[in-house]
């Protein structure tokens, strides 16, 4: 009926851009226009990124020397040594705790826990990841500084940082194990492997790269946090010699020195140098994470396809 009305093979149908008008024409013009419009959002977002890196570098690099890394801040002078040391120790404690708790919990959630328990654990993990860092900070301050009578200690800072990092390690471990193709398990068990052997010899090696990326990711987040440690690790300009002392750390340097009067401008420079160093470390970790996941992805690609 409708087709017959015009008859195929007679005049050319209106298929060209030029042949349409009104509503259809507006639709086509809009479709041409919007791919140029939407990516403008990238300018809005990436401009701050570059501006930030540029300014931080500009304020930090001219005075950045080896001494910045090796000297301890004294008065208005010196370098970041004690803060770098403190950050390293804090992140080491944090990573140890987060890896221990996170991987163990992730392992059990993925492999052993009954379904409702696993679901509940995952929900709790996700909520824990959403707890504001400052709430963790208050928690740490009340429990590990006041209640224990430790006062400000590196250990307390490390523990709170560990709790902050835990959910990321936990969820990636769980995810990595649950996304191992089920055929692998069936094949292993069919060949007579015990569940434990399957986990250690097969599932874990497959999951390891994802777990590692999770750990590095958690480290990057932990490195940049100030809120959980400012009121647990306290502050001390001298390099630490033990875990039960307060310590300084890179993010703390920024928090303490950002708002000083101009007369104390050298400390502001130190804050920018700390910021510069943090950006470098975080970018480095990001690159590692990318390389790791690219490399392992290629190696494991066959498995996931």
């Amino acid at each position, binding site marked *: 009926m409708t087709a017959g009305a015009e008859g195929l*093979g007679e005049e050319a149908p209106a298929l060209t851009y030029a042949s349409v008008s009104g509503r259809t024409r507006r639709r086509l013009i809009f479709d041409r226009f919007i791919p140029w419009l939407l990516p403008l959002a990238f300018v809005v977002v990436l401009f701050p990124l570059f501006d930030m890196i540029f300014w931080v570098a500009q304020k930090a690099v001219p005075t950045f020397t080896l001494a910045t890394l090796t000297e301890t801040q004294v008065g208005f002078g010196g370098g970041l040594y004690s803060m770098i040391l403190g950050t390293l120790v804090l992140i080491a404690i944090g990573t140890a705790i987060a890896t221990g708790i996170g991987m163990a919990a992730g392992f059990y959630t993925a492999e052993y826990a009954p379904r409702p328990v696993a679901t509940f654990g995952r929900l709790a993990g996700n909520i824990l990841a959403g707890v504001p860092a400052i709430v963790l900070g208050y928690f740490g301050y009340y429990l590990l500084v006041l209640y224990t009578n430790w006062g400000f200690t590196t250990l307390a800072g490390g523990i709170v940082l560990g709790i902050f990092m835990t959910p990321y390690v936990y969820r990636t471990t769980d995810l990595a194990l649950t996304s191992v193709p089920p055929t692998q398990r069936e094949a292993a068990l069919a060949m007579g492997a015990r569940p434990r052997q399957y986990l250690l010899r097969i599932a874990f090696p497959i999951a390891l790269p994802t777990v590692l990326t999770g750990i590095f990711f958690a480290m990057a987040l932990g490195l940049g946090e100030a809120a959980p440690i400012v009121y647990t690790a306290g502050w001390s300009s001298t390099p630490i010699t033990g875990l039960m002392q307060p310590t300084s750390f890179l993010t703390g340097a920024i928090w303490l020195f950002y708002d000083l009067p101009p007369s104390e401008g050298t400390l502001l420079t130190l804050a920018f140098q700390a910021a510069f160093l943090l950006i470098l470390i975080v970018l480095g970790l990001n690159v590692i994470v990318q390389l790791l996941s690219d490399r392992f992805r290629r190696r494991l690609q066959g498995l996931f396809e």
Partner: protein
Amino acid sequence: MSAEGVPTPNGVALRVRHLYVRARDRTILTDISIDIPDKEVTAVIGPSGCGKTTFIRSLNRMTETTQGLTVQGSVLYRGQEIYSPSVAPVLVRQRIGMVFQRPTVFPISVYENVAFGLRLEHQPEDRIEQEVQHSLVRAGVWEEVKNDLDRPALSLSGGQQQRICIARALAVRPRILLMDEPTASLDPVSTQRVEATLEELSQEISIVMVTHSIAQAARASTRTAYLYQGRLIEEGSTEELFERPKQKLTEEYVTGRFG
């Protein structure tokens, strides 16, 4: 291959000439030339991986939604080269519709599903209402869903969903309907209904249907094309192709000796 404006004889819905489709690393379709007749059901058969799906997707420029595919050659729709740079793919697809392997209803009501294509053009509501009903009737599913138009389309059975999809494609009044294994995921009863719908529809429009079922091609089509490894081995009336295949490859396939 400039063929713009070349008149296509009456009774030919689509004229495909020297069509090549290439992915980055391989050639999927090689030198396909075929005339798709008007108001008939053309079945495209062949072993899996032979390029059947790519072939019908190249007929309404759906190949462009896959990154890395390049199309070379000519597809003439009523004398107009659809791959010409001045042609808007959106307009091609309004005239050459498509139905997919699995039912692909949107998570909205039955009514809104069928109205989807018309809403894009901001048609008046009374026109839409009329067209929705008419399309559902043509797709042979009106009687079953006429009281459930406001229900979510996803709550219907698979067979009904697939016919909703056919109705949705029909609502924009295409001249040609491309169907990619439209009954692959349906039970025998639904399959039968869809096939009956096809026969009705072919009174008005052309249908190109990919199928992996030789029996379905024999039952539901009047013409059949056999593709093998990206080449068109043979095409002709279904009866002839099944009873007196000219090519050995075709014979082996339709008699079930391989594939």
